[in-house]
């Protein structure tokens, strides 16, 4: 059993507050991701859990026991940090099986496990190479193998950007292997893994904690974080987005029936409708868009108040000319740029709202044949299902500019 709890933990370095009032719980056998941009406090958080830093205030519990004042050694955790710390005088197999000696495991079991992890990380065949002969990516894989085997009692593994130095292809396949390994019957690990890559986070995590500027912004499953982001920062961090500023038209009678269900019968949409309410917003003299607002926020936002509507680029749809049957949540525009990106086509579409021009990003899977009918300068309609429009309280222009890195 490993259950980790942080209660109101704060950590400062001189005058800089690295982490502020962090409370999270990591459950037994959970694959837990800490996700955030460079400098958000991710590594500091890991080091607090590992016992390599002491918090200024707050407490850390392992299985209900307060370990705040326990050293790293006493907490008995496997970890792998960004600088791999391999033994230079040992070859790959000796480095990886070192823990077998420490834990006095029987040699046969160690050999089997070592073989298994080396195969998973495509290191087989280089068994007798020494660290200095290896590339950065290979060293990282050896360190990962070693940390996977160095887990006797706690079965808690802490990984700081474990896939960072790897080439794209290997990084992709290792994500999956890492998760399979953690969930395998032999290991059943609890993993806390830090990354700044949202794809990696969604790929491996049971739950994700999004951290920004030393604070936890949201904790949830990949699905929750992606479809129900708590604020603009979380929405932006998970994928490319579009944003519109509009006026909430709550008390007015909507010009069209926003309460009816969309044509799409997707499970996802009905799920969204459960904990959110639809809300029409006026984004210009003649344009009304509708999106969904979290129920708990409904009373906080008043009629006529400024709100922020966010639609992910891959939730935007696009049709040539004015051919959209359902003219709701739709606006005419012109394609400025069209670019093949591999799995997706990415379009930049120019629209006009309140006489102001705005560029909307739309991505569609390249396997959809329809993209072949759109070119640069094509007149198009872009639209989105209202269930995929996410409405937030307006956070202020400066926050929007800062989050979207407009400067």
């Amino acid at each position: 059993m490993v259950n980790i709890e942080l209660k109101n933990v704060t950590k400062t370095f001189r005058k800089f507050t690295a982490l502020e009032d962090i409370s999270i719980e990591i459950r037994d056998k959970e694959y837990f991701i800490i996700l955030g941009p460079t400098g958000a406090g991710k590594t500091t958080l890991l080091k607090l859990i590992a016992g390599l830093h002491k918090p200024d205030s707050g407490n850390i519990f392992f299985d209900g026991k307060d370990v705040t004042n326990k050293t790293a050694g006493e907490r008995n955790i496997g970890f792998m940090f960004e600088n791999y710390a391999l033994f230079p005088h040992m070859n790959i197999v000796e480095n990886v099986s070192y823990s077998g000696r420490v834990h006095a495991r029987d040699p046969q079991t160690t050999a089997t496990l070592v073989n298994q992890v080396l195969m998973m990380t495509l290191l087989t065949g280089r068994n007798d190479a020494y660290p200095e002969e290896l590339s950065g990516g290979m060293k990282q894989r050896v360190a990962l193998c070693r940390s996977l085997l160095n887990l006797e009692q706690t079965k808690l593994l802490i990984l700081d950007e474990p896939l960072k130095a790897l080439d794209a292809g290997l990084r992709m396949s290792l994500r999956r292997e890492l998760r399979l390994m953690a969930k395998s019957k032999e290991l059943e690990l609890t993993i806390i893994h830090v990354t700044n890559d949202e794809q990696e986070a969604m790929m491996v995590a049971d739950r994700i904690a999004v951290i920004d500027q030393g604070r936890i912004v949201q904790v949830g499953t990949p699905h929750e974080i992606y479809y129900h982001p708590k604020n603009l920062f979380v929405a932006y961090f998970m994928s490319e987005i579009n944003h519109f500023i509009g006026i909430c038209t709550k008390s007015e009678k909507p010009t069209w029936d926003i309460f009816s269900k969309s044509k799409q019968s997707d499970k996802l949409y009905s799920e969204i409708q459960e904990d959110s309410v639809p809300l029409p917003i006026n984004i210009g003299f003649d344009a009304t868009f509708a999106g969904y607002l979290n129920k708990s926020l409904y009373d906080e936002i008043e009629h006529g108040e400024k709100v922020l509507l966010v639609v992910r680029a891959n939730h935007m749809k696009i049709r040539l000319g004015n051919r959209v049957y359902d003219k709701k949540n739709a606006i005419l525009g012109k394609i400025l740029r069209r670019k093949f990106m591999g799995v997706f086509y990415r379009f930049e579409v120019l629209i006009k709202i309140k006489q102001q021009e705005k560029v909307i990003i739309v991505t569609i899977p390249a396997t959809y044949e329809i993209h072949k009918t759109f070119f640069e300068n094509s007149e198009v309609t872009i639209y989105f299902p209202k269930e995929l429009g996410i409405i937030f309280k307006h956070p202020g222009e400066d926050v929007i500019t800062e989050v979207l890195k407009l400067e």
Partner: protein
Amino acid sequence: MPTIELVNVTKTFNEGKVLAVDNISVRIEHGEYVFLIGPTGCGKTTTLRMIAGLEEPTKGKVLIDGKDVKGIPPEDRDMGFIFQHFEIFDHLTVWENVTFGLEMRGYDDDHIVKEAEKALKTVDLLQYADEYPSIFGNPGLQKLGIARAIATGAKILIMDEPLGSLDPKVSKVFRHELRNLVKDLGLTAIHVTHNQEESMAIADKIIIMRGGKLLQMGSPYELYENPNNIFVANFLGETNFLQGFVLKLFENEDMKINIRLGGPELNIYNFGKKFSLNDNIIIAFRYEDVYLFPEDYNFKSSQYDWSKMQLFVAILEVSRFVGATKRFYLLLDNGDKFVSVKPGNFEESFTSGQKLVIGIHQDDIHVFKAPKDILYELSLS
């Protein structure tokens, strides 16, 4: 109208002991945004340095606008340089950083002021003209680097990992800005990176190198849709590779071959490539080109022409939601694995362990002769 040509260019170091670039010929058109990519040590940076005039070819010629530029130093090649680590002068203001290069070229005051203003405006930094670069984060510093490069009026931009120092999230936003800027100014750009995704997102043309050789050159679309070898198929995008052998040959039918994988048999029309009976082959297909149907799917109910779709059965191991996409991990009888990627809103109610019918359009299947060392071909170094 600058065009850049490399004609049979070879570069060796250490008196011929190290072959860095091996007889490559490339033509870059005016206004083209070209990427040189490949794993570490593939010769991409050396190639860039020869175009820039920082190295001379051992053999072959570099032509700019049809003129051999042998012996012409970098500063006289009408090029702007952008580096990974910016190389900005900390002790000069933003304005001074941009005007420095113009002053060195001996332009008059009016010209310097006009061009510096224009360049800073292009990258939205004009309001910071009198500040020192220390106020900027990495994106701001790189914008300044770009302003400095374009202010000289250079028509060619030489970039070595220009997005390499940016936070990954920022770099994903900035790369579109970079492409738009280069296209709007009508510049010819050559950009070196090891980041495949970045090259797909920005390039008009990609040149893939490995071990000093040019492996393939073409638009992102061409390389992605028709990779001419296993390395390229693996390097760009996410690709499944399955091993099999040629079971039957149909000489009269469009070079049709029948191959056996671990379990399923597929009919494949190959495009002029020669295979013999029992040849070991590798088939390659993209994750997103794998269609999934429940076992009881009624194929007759839809209008689709199924004759060109290769259908076979596999077991769904597990699926994963990754935001914009969902990934399905599939298993063949013999234990071989492959992956299907669908859009994130793909509707399904598949469960782990379920048998599925797999569909792949024959045009999306690429067949290669099995190389002697498949692990080398698939390794990305």
